[in-house]
């Protein structure tokens, strides 16, 4: 790969219709490839999630070592994060980079290399964790370190390809969406490197690195990727510009400066230095700036277009995603307060929070933007009914899931504060675990429908309308 940004194949010889068609085909197959593998990991990871939820009520079920709760828990989180969400968002980011820059992908080959490496890391990581090879660094860096190096390689390839694509843009400015997506891949290369190097990770030192890592891997990878894709998909879908470019820029820089500082709020009341914990709390509050600013920008872009939303499930998914971002991130700030963390830390409330953010925000965002953009790439569409079933199952399921764990987790924390015997908190959680299973099952079923819908968009027969009249919403049948 010599030449860097200037070496875009399409510009090296006279541009013809043929080349454009070839570029479009290449972009489509990359986008489809990432999305399809992401859907596979989604089904796998949430299937594991169902098994885990069931085991909380039936601990003697499936007692094999490789199916035990402690091994599968890490399989579930890592496959969700690095399988599903990562692959889906990188696929979307590639499409957005090329489309918003009005150019071809810098390198189709690099995109495929990234896809193979991401999937390879995720597969190897899953097998390793099932066999009991766990690096022990709780929360999202459990894969043995050589596998995490493969993942880092995939990130590097992706960053290079996105930058190359943006460098070859046919537009004057770099569209805001790419600030977020390219930024996210660059930041995450740093995060993955910091996470894997061993020299500053002994004892309590590793605790502080874990706080940094687990938080940044979420907030400087998934968050900016998703926001960046919103900045492209929402205006595209609504056929109107983003409400405020400046607000988007402000949110970008404030997210960048505030987010890396707040990791230690996962370790309040530990022996970590007091200044580290307090700084983390202060900047957790400062996160209101990018979160509320970004949310306002999206909501104001949607203003007055309720009728479109009612007729478009991709917009509905994105709307829920934006609200999930607002509610989930604001909740995160409140959880960082010492007084509230006294109640909620270590309880299942936290599990509710992580699903509110990773599902209510990231997953709904992915569903909505895939429904919005994938049909533009393939020229085919899913049925409105299919998307409706997906939407309502996912929405109701995640509500049940998050509410039951929020209530159950609060009771759990209050039990401890009331000085009850520990086992009482286990007993009190049982009914909420059942509701968690019900919600989780609905979410899983919605993913089966999602898989069917994606298949139809990728390989189905129903063509998307060639030109969308106003926002009547390319890729979706009129109501």
């Amino acid at each position, binding site marked *: 790969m010599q030449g860097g940004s200037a070496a875009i194949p399409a510009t090296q010889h006279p541009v013809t219709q043929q080349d454009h068609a070839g570029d479009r085909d290449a972009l489509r197959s990359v986008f489809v490839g990432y999305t399809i593998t992401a859907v596979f990991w989604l089904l796998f990871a949430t299937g594991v999630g169902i098994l885990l939820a069931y085991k909380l009520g039936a601990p003697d079920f499936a007692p094999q070592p490789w199916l035990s709760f402690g091994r599968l828990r890490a399989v579930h989180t890592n496959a969700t994060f690095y399988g599903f969400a990562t692959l889906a968002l990188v696929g979307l980011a590639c499409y957005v980079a090329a489309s918003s820059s009005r150019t071809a992908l810098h390198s189709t080959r690099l995109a495929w290399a990234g896809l193979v490496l991401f999937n390879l890391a995720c597969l190897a990581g899953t097998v390793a964790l099932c066999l009991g090879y766990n690096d022990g660094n*709780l929360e999202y860096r459990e894969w043995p370190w050589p596998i995490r190096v493969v993942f880092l390689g995939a990130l590097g390839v992706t960053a290079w390809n996105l930058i190359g694509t943006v460098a070859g843009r046919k537009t004057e400015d770099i569209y805001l969406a790419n600030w977020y997506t390219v930024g996210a891949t660059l*930041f995450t290369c740093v*995060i993955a490197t910091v996470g894997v190097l061993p020299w500053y990770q*002994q004892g309590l030192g590793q605790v502080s690195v874990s706080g940094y890592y687990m938080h940044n891997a979420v907030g400087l990878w998934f968050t900016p990727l998703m926001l960046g894709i919103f900045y492209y998909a929402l205006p595209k879908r609504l056929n109107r510009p983003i409400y405020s470019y400046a607000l988007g820029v402000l949110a970008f820089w404030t997210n960048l400066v505030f987010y890396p500082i707040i990791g230690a709020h996962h370790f309040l009341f530990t022996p970590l230095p007091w200044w580290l914990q307090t700084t983390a709390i202060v900047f957790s509050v400062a996160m209101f700036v990018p979160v509320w600013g970004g949310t306002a920008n999206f909501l104001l872009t949607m203003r007055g277009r309720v009728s479109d939303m009612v007729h478009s499930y991709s917009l509905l998914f994105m709307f829920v995603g934006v609200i999930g971002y607002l509610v989930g991130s604001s909740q995160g700030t409140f959880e960082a307060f010492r007084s509230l963390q006294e109640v909620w830390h270590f309880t299942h409330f936290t599990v509710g929070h992580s699903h509110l953010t990773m599902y209510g925000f990231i997953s709904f965002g992915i569903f909505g933007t895939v429904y919005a953009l994938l049909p533009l790439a393939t020229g085919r569409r899913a049925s409105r009914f299919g998307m409706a079933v997906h939407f309502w199952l996912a929405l109701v399921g995640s509500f049940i899931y998050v509410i039951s764990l929020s209530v159950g987790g609060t009771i759990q924390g209050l039990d*401890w504060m009331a000085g009850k015997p520990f086992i009482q908190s286990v007993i009190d959680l049982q009914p909420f675990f059942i509701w968690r299973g019900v919600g989780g099952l609905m979410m899983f079923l919605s993913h089966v429908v999602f898989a069917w819908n994606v298949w139809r968009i990728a390989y189905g027969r129903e063509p998307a309308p060639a030109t969308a009249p106003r926002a009547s919403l390319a890729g979706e049948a009129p109501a």
Partner: protein
Amino acid sequence: MRQMWLIFGGAFAIYVVLAVIMGVLPGFALSSIEPTPGLEPLTPLEAEGRAVYVANGCSYCHTQQVRPLPQDRVWGRPSAPGDFAYQTPELLGSQRTGPDLANVGARQPSATWHYIHLYNPRAVVPESIMPPYAWLFETVDQAPANVPAVPLPAPWAPEHGVVVPTREGEALVAYLLSLKQPPLPGASEAGAGGDASHAAPVGDGSATRTEEQPSEAEETAGDDYRYDPARGESLYVAYCAACHQPGGQGLTGAFPPLKGNAAVNDPDAARHIRVILDGLQGEEIDGVFYGSPMPAFRTSLDDRDIADIVNHERRSWGNAGAFVTAADVAAHRAAAGE
């Protein structure tokens, strides 16, 4: 090109600086903290057990950090920075679906209990939702000379032969028993919870944390003790029932029954109180030998707690021992003290 360098280069540079300040530098600084005095490095067997703990993801449900909060006192004294000196990878954990294990070796020093509990947690704690770890055991016709058979209660025992831990099982229990918080210099041993105030975090600002720790010692020192049956039962469930069982019947061969127990029904409560204060091991009770140790509750429970537990045990399951007061416990605590 310039625009690209400014945005991506600038953002990248800012992020690298922040990552170094918030991730790498604290990591370096905190990696070289001195171990808490009295903290022993793991033996090879314990280290092996730690690897088993990591491989099976125990820390997704069990924390190993005690916070300087009232509700954490049951788990031990607040964790100190030096407690983690030999802990790489760190296992502080993020959830307490199960109990904290920072001090489990002191709270539950019986290897027998851990073996039964790991084989199937419901054999000793009926409401437990912990998975069974039967693969850390094997069923053999006869236990080898140096490995004790696990005294499983009837529903869980195999039809033929006996259950013994594998090397991995032995290592895991050795590791769990090694998890004992060394006392902090200057921490008081007497009474309950008073030592919570020694939760010094790294750096300054510890004063703001310690103010909130009320000392229960003063509240319980007075003579106005009144037995609270609900409290007695709750404390019994929290501290005693894992071994002696909710019905007081114990597990034959593993943990002695309290139901009909001679010391519990003795009008003189001296032995009853002393055993709770200082623990017991290797005695024959009602004709059965019990080899696994009972922990001492001298430091984790105060006089009123122990009096409530003693009274609960003396008035449950058909027992008819005489009541005791917190003052009785205080007297024995002082008499038997160092």
